[in-house]
C-alpha cells in the first residue's frame, strides 16, 4: 500500500522549525557552549548571544531589551506574569482582585484558579458570542484593588482577536498592570507593546517556527513583579536557571523572520482561509463558524458541527491524511465541550463537534481545495454513526 502524503493543518498546535532558525541555533550546542553567567570568554560569547537575542526580541515587539525575560515556554511566561504580578501587588498594596476572561488558554485559566485558592478573587469578564472582550466592560469591572488584568490577544481555539490596544489603554489610565497571552498572536500579528499599552506579554517560540522549549515574557519597566522560579540571578533575578542559549537564539531568529515575512504570509493565509470558510459553510449542513468572522487570526478557521463527535472526526481526518485539531480534543477521546465554546454560549450538541484548521507556510490552495472536497463526506459518515 502506497504511503499516503499527510497534510498538516494544525499550525496553531505547533510549527516545524524553520531551517534558517535551526542553522542559527547549531553553533550554540557544541562550539559556543559556555554558560552566560561565567566570567571567562566561553561565558562571554554565550552571554553575547543571549543579549543579542534579547535585543532582537525587544526590537520585534517595540520594547527595550531590559524588558524581555526568557522562559521555557509560553505557559511559563503566563505563569510568571500572573503569579509574579499578583504576589507583588498583594505584598505592596494588598490588591487581590484579578480580572480575566473565560476564553483564556489553560496556562492562564488554571493559574488563576490556583491563585483563587490562595486568597485572590478572580473575576471573569463577559465575552460576546465571538469570544471578544469589550474594553468598556473592562473599564466597568476595574476596582481600586484590582491587581492585574489578563486578556488573551488572539484565541487559540476560535481565532478571535481582542481589541488589546483599547483594553490596554483602559488599564493604563487606571495604572493597573495589563497582561496578554500573545502565544498565538505573535505568529501572525504585528505586535507593538508601546502603542498597545501592554504591560506584560507572553510568547512561545514553537508557534512561529522556532524550537519548542523556549518562550519570553515582556515586562514593561516599572511593573510590580516577583520571581516565581528562584535561584541564580539570571534575567535580572526574575527567572533563575542557566540560560538555554541555543533555544534563546532560535526564538529571536524565528521571531525576526516571522516579523519580516508577516505581510507576505498573511495575504496568502487570508485568501485560503476565506476559501475554506465559504467552502465548508456552503457544503456541510448544520455548521457554524466559531469566533469572529473577520477579527480573527489570518491562518485560523474553526467550526462546530451539530450532532457530531469532534474526536471521532479528528480520527477520521487523520486516517484520511489530514492532521487537524478540535477545541475538545483529548487523547483519551473524552467527549467534553471546551470551556471556550461553552463560554461563547454554544449548547453541548454543537460544542462537542468542533474542528480547528490552522494554516502554515507550507499550506497550498490545492491542499485546501482537497480538504474542502473530502470533509463533507467524512462528516456525513460520522454523523450517520451516532
Amino acid at each position, binding site marked *: *500500500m502506497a504511503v499516503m502524503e499527510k497534510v498538516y493543518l494544525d499550525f496553531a498546535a505547533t510549527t516545524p522549525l524553520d531551517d534558517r532558525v535551526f542553522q542559527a541555533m547549531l553553533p550554540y550546542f557544541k562550539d559556543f557552549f559556555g554558560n552566560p553567567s561565567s566570567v571567562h570568554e566561553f561565558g562571554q560569547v554565550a552571554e553575547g548571544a543571549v543579549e543579542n537575542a534579547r535585543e532582537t526580541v525587544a526590537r520585534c515587539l517595540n520594547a527595550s531589551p531590559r524588558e524581555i525575560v526568557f522562559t521555557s515556554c509560553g505557559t511559563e511566561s503566563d505563569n510568571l506574569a500572573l503569579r509574579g504580578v499578583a504576589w507583588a501587588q498583594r505584598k505592596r498594596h494588598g490588591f487581590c482582585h484579578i480580572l480575566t476572561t473565560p476564553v483564556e488558554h489553560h496556562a492562564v485559566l488554571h493559574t488563576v484558579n490556583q491563585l483563587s485558592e490562595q486568597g485572590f478573587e478572580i473575576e471573569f469578564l463577559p465575552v460576546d458570542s465571538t469570544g471578544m472582550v469589550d474594553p468598556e466592560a473592562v473599564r466597568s469591572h476595574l476596582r481600586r484593588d484590582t491587581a492585574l488584568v489578563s486578556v488573551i490577544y488572539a484565541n487559540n481555539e476560535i481565532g478571535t482577536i481582542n481589541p488589546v490596544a483599547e483594553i490596554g489603554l483602559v488599564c493604563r489610565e487606571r495604572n493597573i498592570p495589563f497582561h496578554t497571552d500573545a502565544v498565538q498572536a505573535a505568529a501572525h500579528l504585528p505586535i507593538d507593546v508601546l502603542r498597545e499599552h501592554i504591560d506584560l506579554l507572553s510568547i512561545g517560540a514553537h508557534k512561529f517556527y522556532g524550537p519548542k522549549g523556549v518562550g519570553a515574557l515582556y515586562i514593561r519597566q516599572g511593573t510590580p513583579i516577583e520571581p516565581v522560579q528562584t535561584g541564580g540571578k539570571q534575567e535580572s533575578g526574575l527567572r533563575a536557571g542557566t540560560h538555554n542559549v541555543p533555544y534563546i537564539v532560535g526564538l529571536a531568529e524565528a521571531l525576526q523572520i516571522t516579523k519580516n515575512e508577516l505581510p507576505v504570509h498573511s495575504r496568502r493565509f487570508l485568501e485560503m482561509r476565506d476559501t475554506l470558510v465559504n467552502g465548508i459553510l456552503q457544503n456541510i449542513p448544520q455548521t457554524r463558524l466559531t469566533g469572529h468572522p473577520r477579527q480573527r487570526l489570518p491562518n485560523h478557521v474553526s467550526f462546530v458541527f451539530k450532532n457530531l463527535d469532534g474526536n471521532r472526526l479528528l480520527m*477520521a481526518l487523520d486516517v484520511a491524511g489530514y492532521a487537524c485539531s478540535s477545541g475538545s480534543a483529548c487523547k*483519551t477521546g473524552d467527549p467534553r465541550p471546551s470551556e471556550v465554546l461553552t463560554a461563547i454560549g454554544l449548547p453541548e450538541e454543537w460544542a462537542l463537534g468542533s474542528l480547528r484548521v490552522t494554516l502554515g507556510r507550507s499550506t497550498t490552495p490545492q491542499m485546501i481545495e482537497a480538504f474542502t472536497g473530502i470533509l463533507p463526506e467524512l462528516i456525513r459518515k460520522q454523523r450517520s454513526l451516532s
Partner: protein
Amino acid sequence: MSGGVDSSVAAALLVEQGYRVIGMMLRLWSETGTEESNRCCTPDSMAQARKVAQTLGIPFYTIDVRQRFFDTVVHYFLEGYRQGVTPNPCVVCNRVIRWGALFDQARALGAEFLATGHYARTKSGPDGEFLLLKGLDAEKDQSYVLSVLSQNHLTHSLFPIGNFLKSHVRDLARRYDLPTASRPDSQDLCFLAGGDYRSFLERHIPESLRPGNIVNREGKILGQHLGLAHYTIGQRKGIGISTTHPVYVLDKDIQNNLLIVGPREELGSDEMWVDELNWIGKSEPAKSFRAGVKIRYKAPEMPALITLTENSLAHVQFESPLRDITPGQRAVFYQGEVCLGGGTIIKKGAKL
C-alpha cells in the same frame, strides 16, 4: 487494543502481513472513582496500548463509548438481575459495543476489517459463506462470546491469533518486543473494577437485594434469604440454612421474592428453552439437529438435540441431566469445530 498480549500480537501479525493497521481502544464505563481499576481500559492499559502502537508504527485512537456502554451493557446487566436471571453482559458488549459501535466506526473510516485478539478462527465456505471456528487453543477458545456475530461481521473480521496456542502468542510477543502480560483471566466483569457484584447491585438496584423467604418445592419456609441477586441456580454453599441433607438453589420466584431450594436430584434437568437466537451461517439450521451445547463460557460442551419452534425459540434436549442450567446465560451450539450460533437460556426444564 487493550495493551495486553493478545491484541498486541494480533496487531503485530497484521502489520507483518502488510496490512495498513489502525489501533483502536474502547473507553468503557466505570463507576465514578473506579476508573483506575476497570479491567478493560485503565489509564495504565491505555498508555500500554499507545506504546504498543508506537512500537508497531501504527496510528492509535481511543473511542469513548462510556455512555453507550452504560445504556446498553450495564443496563442489561442490572435489568437481568432485576428480573432474577444471571445475565452475561460480555455477550451484549460484543454485539452492541465491539461489533456495534467499534465495527461501524472502523468501517466508516474505510477499514476493510475489524481485527481483535480473540481466540477464534474464521473460514470461508464454498459458497462464500463465512464460518466461525473455535480457536486452535482449546483452553483459550473464545468462540462462545463471539456467537452473536453475523455473516456481515465475519466477512469483515479477522482473528489473527486464533490459529495459535497462547504459549506461542507469548513467544511472538517476546519476538516482536511487545508486552507479554495478559489481563488476569478473571471472571469478573470489567465495570465491576475488581469490586464485588453484590455491592454493585446494592448501589444500583437495591430492590434486588430485598430479604425474603427460602422455601422448598412444597412451599415450606426453611429460612430467610438476603435478596435473590445473592444466589445462583445450582449454588449449594452459603445459602445459610441448616438442613439434614445438603440443599441447592433450584429456582427463584421473583414475583413473590422466594428462593426455592431442594435436594440435588431436583436440581438437574436434561432440557431447556433458549430465546434470542442468532445463527452465524447464511441460512437457519434444520428444524431439528444434533449439536454440542455450552451453557456457560467455561462449561464443557454437551451433546443435545435442538428443535426450533414456530415462535423462534429453541428447545434443547440433552442426553443426560445438567445441574447448572442458568437462565440469563448464553447457550452456544457447536458442530465439531464450527460455532453455529447461540441464544439466551430462558427456562430450565420441559415446561416453558
